């Protein structure tokens, strides 16, 4: 009896040790080492939530997207070795705030005043506007028509902030989902009348689902534009290195090149430069 117990104890101890061992060995899974770290130089680790095509998403086991290409250009300009890891949204927020394991986050993070209390941002690198997506034949024409309608958004995004401000945060007609994918499914299944999301997301979804007959509505008047920036811990020294590099990449045409690759159109650079000041 006693021998049996000891045997069980040993087996579980061995299992625990081996599981923990595997965990620390495969630490690098999902991380794409880029930039070629040279000896002695500290690799800057970026966290992202790769669930936001086409800005950042997983292509099989690789993190790709506009943000990732843009970051590559910036880090090349700055001459710093770096890595990007797909940590998911919450882990990104918590670890960037700490700043020990991950020194920065790049994940279509919009600049808002509430968030500035807890983080620093680089200068903006992307202008985004929110768009309304409805089924064909819907009577919704502008943001004001959303009053009294069921609206689905991805929680915590600026789309969420905008509709919360327009219609009240505790309005039961606003449904906040974990991802835009689920919000769009809610629209498809008839649980919502409209989805509000970043123009890049809406464009990508309509492109990928041509048979569903969704249309996107732009409403510049009610949805002001917002800017994405790289998320940094408070007082980060990286800001001084990244800001000039971002500025250069935007000015020297690299930015426009990447933008055209992902969105097929020319970006409005002057807006970004004005917002940077």
């Amino acid at each position, binding site marked *: 009896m006693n021998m049996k117990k000891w045997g069980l104890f040993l087996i579980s101890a061995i299992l625990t040790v081996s599981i923990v061992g595997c965990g620390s060995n495969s630490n690098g899974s999902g991380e794409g080492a880029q930039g070629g770290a040279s000896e002695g130089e500290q690799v800057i680790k970026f966290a992202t939530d790769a669930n936001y095509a086409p800005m950042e998403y997983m292509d099989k086991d690789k993190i790709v997207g506009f943000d990732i290409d843009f970051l590559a250009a910036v880090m090349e300009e700055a001459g710093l070795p770096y890595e990007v890891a797909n940590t998911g949204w919450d882990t990104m927020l918590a670890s960037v*705030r700490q700043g020990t394991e991950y020194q920065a986050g790049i994940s279509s993070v919009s600049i808002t005043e*509430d*968030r500035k209390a*807890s983080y620093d941002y680089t200068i903006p690198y992307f202008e985004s506007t929110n768009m309304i997506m409805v089924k064909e034949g819907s009577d919704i024409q502008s943001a004001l028509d959303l009053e009294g309608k069921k609206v689905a958004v991805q929680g*915590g995004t600026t789309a969420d902030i905008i509709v919360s401000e327009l219609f009240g*945060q505790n309005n039961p007609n606003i*449904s906040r*989902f974990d991802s835009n994918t689920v919000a769009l*499914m809610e629209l498809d*299944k008839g649980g919502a009348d409209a989805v509000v999301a970043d123009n890049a997301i809406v464009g990508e979804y309509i492109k990928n689902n041509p048979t569903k007959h969704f249309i996107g509505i732009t409403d510049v008047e009610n949805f002001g534009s917002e800017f994405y920036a790289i998320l940094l811990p408070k007082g980060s020294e990286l800001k001084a290195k990244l800001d000039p590099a971002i500025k250069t990449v935007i000015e020297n045409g690299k930015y426009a090149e990447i933008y055209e690759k992902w969105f097929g159109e020319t970006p409005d650079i002057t807006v970004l430069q004005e917002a940077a000041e």
Partner: protein
Amino acid sequence: MDFRFDIIIDYMPLILRGTMLTIGISILSIILGSILGLGIGFGKMSSRWYIRWPFQSYINFFRGTPLFVQIFIVHFGVIPAIIGRTDPFIAAITALSLNSAAYTAEIYRAGIQSIDKGQREAAQSLGMTNVQAMRYVILPQAIKRMIPAFGNEFIVLIKDSSLVAVIAAQELMYWSQAMSGQYYRIWEPYLTAALVYFILTYSLSKLLNYIERRM
């Protein structure tokens, strides 16, 4: 480390509203799941394999697949097929009840089968029918043994109900995530939610302890 109580206070009305919904969803799911589980538990105890089989399959499916996926299946598949649109509240209760029933079914079965055969035989020798023996002799003894297991299951269910935030059921975790999204902070919303869940589960376990002692 700075901890911003001001944003918790800011969100307090929504946290409270979410807590009320969490309590509502949990209580309804516990009740419906226990009733459904009783039927499934008896079905599984049938001596005929063709009666046993569907109940066994039910338990295998709901215990063997992630609740997260079941919530999506119910919300985007089952409920729209029945009422023609999605409804997060109905989907949340349906998914949690169906899932919980699979676990409670096994608790009923284990409790009933733990009662010595002699009890049933003694009841029958007094002229009781099978149903009477179950109702007056076996169940009263079995239920007392089931209570600790039910306590476990109900506590798990209360915490699992946080998963229905993925279909935008506006419960406690939903508002915690909203708070996190607005301020990009982790500890204030999630520690607040953890505290509320703890209060709920701790009260429930105290209540069940009390019931167990009284029986």
